[in-house]
């Protein structure tokens, strides 16, 4: 018994696959960057605003919704009927859905990280006459970044891998291209091996970076 591997049938799809990889990267980077920044802001707002518990509960509710459901929500939302505007592109919907998911995850991390910033460090800063804004800028935020970064990188990798959900709403990412190619060439195994390889190349550097970070001295500079 033997299986006759044949990747050559995908040669004509080279450009389409590369474009797919680029779409995957674009969706991931936009979602991760916008989601992380928004999450930081949200976490700080939950912390500083009144009714913290209510905000946190709402955040938990949003966090419970799966990414694919968010994608469908933004994709099938009746924009025209509700706001009188054109429906958003599949790409925008993918970034919104994945970004929102990243944002509520980040907000939750940041919210609880504020509590874990050493009071001793803050007292040390106060005792020298430093004001709250300087304390946030130089001590609290750097500490929150150290606390949350390892978990955050894990989620970034998750977003990168789950960005392929966007193919369901029609984004032409690498998975979408593979689906089209297998439909035309019937070499399913090869196609998915190829896609798997592409993801390994994309994800592995992040995993290795996360491991280096975990072992780094920089991360230990917390009290």
């Amino acid at each position, binding site marked *: 018994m033997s299986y006759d591997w044949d990747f050559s049938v995908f040669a004509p799809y080279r450009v389409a696959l590369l474009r797919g990889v680029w779409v995957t990267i674009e969706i991931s980077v936009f979602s991760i960057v916008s989601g992380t920044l928004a999450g930081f802001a949200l976490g700080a707002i939950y912390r500083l605003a009144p009714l913290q518990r209510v905000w946190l509960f709402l955040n938990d509710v949003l966090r419970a919704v799966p990414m694919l459901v968010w994608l469908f929500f933004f994709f099938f939302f009746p924009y025209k009927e509700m706001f009188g505007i054109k429906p958003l592109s599949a790409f925008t919907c993918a970034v919104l859905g994945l970004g929102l998911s990243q944002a509520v995850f980040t907000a939750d991390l940041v919210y609880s990280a504020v509590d874990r910033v*050493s009071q*001793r*460090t803050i*007292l*040390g*800063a*106060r*005792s*020298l*006459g*430093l*004001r709250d804004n*300087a304390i946030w800028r*130089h*001590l609290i935020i*750097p*500490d929150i970044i*150290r606390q949350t970064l390892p978990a955050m990188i894990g989620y970034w990798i998750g977003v990168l891998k789950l960005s392929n959900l966007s193919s369901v709403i029609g984004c032409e990412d690498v998975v979408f291209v593979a689906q089209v190619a297998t439909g035309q060439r019937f070499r399913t195994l090869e196609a998915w091996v190829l896609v798997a390889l592409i993801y390994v190349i994309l994800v592995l550097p992040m995993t290795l970076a996360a491991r280096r970070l975990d072992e780094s*001295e920089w991360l*230990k*500079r*917390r*009290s």
Partner: protein
Amino acid sequence: MAEATVIEPRLRVRGLRHQYGDHHVLEGIDLDVAPGGTLAIVGRSGSGKSTLLRCLCVLEEAQGGHVDLDGQTYLRNGKPVFEPWEIRSNSVMVFQEYNLFPNMTGLRNITLALENVRKLGRQEAKDRAHDVAKMLGIEQMLGRYPNQMSGGQAQRLALCRALVLEPAVLCLDEITAALDAETIVDVVDAIRSIRSYRENKRMVVVIVTHLMRFAVEFADRIAYLFQGQIWEELPAKSFLINCQRPETQHFVSKFRVPF
């Protein structure tokens, strides 16, 4: 007849009160410290020594009393008259646990407040940091992070960070507690050397300690804090033999053996 010179106290505390709920920690503290004076506050643990320092540095709010510095009131009825950060930058506290900034090098630990509070330029701040660090013997530590320092080095860095600000009042809260005897000697030497730096001759130093010998050697006067009040205050050198009140005598009887 020679005229008696009356030295106005630089730091004057009157009727300072503090309570946690129903528990009265400080019940009307009166203290005077002369310019350049060092006052040691001794007492049992839980007697309110650290609370007193925190109130002086506005890290905790007092419920009553006045505190004057150079004749200017900064705490009135326990409430700060100026912005708390402004008072803190002139009445600086050094802690038992150092309370350094773990994410910053030794140098940055020192320059952060110089730049942000004293508004010095980066280079000037660095120069000052190097000057004082040299006096305290920690110049080679400036490139290291707090987690790479020994207890004695970390404590000297904490002192350095406070001293470069040239505060009017320096409060030292049990700074020898986490150190071994040899390191304490280093730190005591370091504190002595700081007097010669710039404007520090007139600086008032208030220390809280449980080491009687440290208090006797380092301070001019010692105050015994008991039941939320200054029970007895005497010149440091004669405190052990001249204290009068039975509670003070009972307290010092444990310290016949130094350290």
